[in-house]
């Protein structure tokens, strides 16, 4: 049963319409923000560099994504902060 469902799901995602939708999602983000994927990547890296200067973050668990809310683009950053070992001042 589970196999059958997986097969059904894979069949649907293999269709060309879902490829079109996935590709368009990314293209529209780039068009709307006027940022190339490379620029977006370097912006994320710089952002992390700046934040790391002030607090220790878990860079492996960082997630920075462009999301869509209506026609508004939103940059969502989820940056877990490492528990600080309290230093004596």
């Amino acid at each position: 049963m589970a196999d059958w469902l997986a097969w059904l799901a894979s069949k649907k995602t293999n269709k060309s319409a879902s490829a079109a939708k996935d590709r368009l999602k990314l293209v529209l983000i780039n068009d709307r923000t006027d940022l190339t994927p490379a620029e977006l990547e370097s912006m994320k890296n710089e952002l992390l560099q700046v934040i790391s200067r002030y607090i220790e973050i878990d860079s492996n668990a960082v997630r920075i994504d462009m999301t869509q809310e209506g026609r508004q683009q939103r940059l969502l950053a989820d940056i877990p902060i490492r528990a600080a070992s309290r230093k004596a001042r």
Partner: protein
Amino acid sequence: MSATVVTVTSGKGGVGKTTTTANLAVALAAGGQKVVCIDGDIGLRNLDVILGLENRIVYDLVDVVEGRCRLKQAMIRDKRLQELYLIPAAQTRDKNAVSPSDMVRLTDDLREEFDWVLIDSPAGIERGFRNSVAPADTVLVVTNPEVSAVRDADRIIGLIESEEKGPARLILNRVNYEMVKRGDMLTSDDVLELLAVELIGIVPEDDHVIMSSNRGQPVALDPKTRAGTAFQNIARRLRGEDVPFMNLEVKEDIFQKLSRLIRPGGN
């Protein structure tokens, strides 16, 4: 009387702007409304042939703007529908012959006498587009369920917003329901999710559209066709009526049914 100025645009060419403008004009006029449509595509006029009025052109939009004729002289009256008029584009001039403020002035003169002024915008995002959008009260964006058309629609919707002519409403044209069903065409829900705009109509792909443009008889004159009904419905929604979106399910013939039985989940 004070007309609503509706601009039909798309970004990408060939998605059905002119067909849409012609059919909405016909559908509104058939519903007893007084309608004038303006071909905004200077240098590449086509609304005249789609409406079947190409043989009756004497003056055009540029003649009016440059004062070579009165507005009334450039308005061609349709013979099928007494309340339908066309102002054709000039064929031998370029888009810079008209400015956005010319278009605002022209439509202001027309507003008094009509219920609807429909403007067929050219493709692209340059002067012709800005001319067409400048006087608009409402903008309709035509697109097809296809990557390049959707991408360009998104761009044009953004521009319409920045010109403060939004929110644009979407017409999804040429939907091939067979392809949608087998997962090989974006659904209307997909397109709406991507573009995040309000939908005003879905028009199925229908051979009758080309057949009727061959004859210069817009398909909306024949509401027995699926595309004709779709355009009629958009015209009613423009008038503020709440019309449910039509079911695009095409009737399967006996062979298609059989082949589905033989190869379940196939094709």
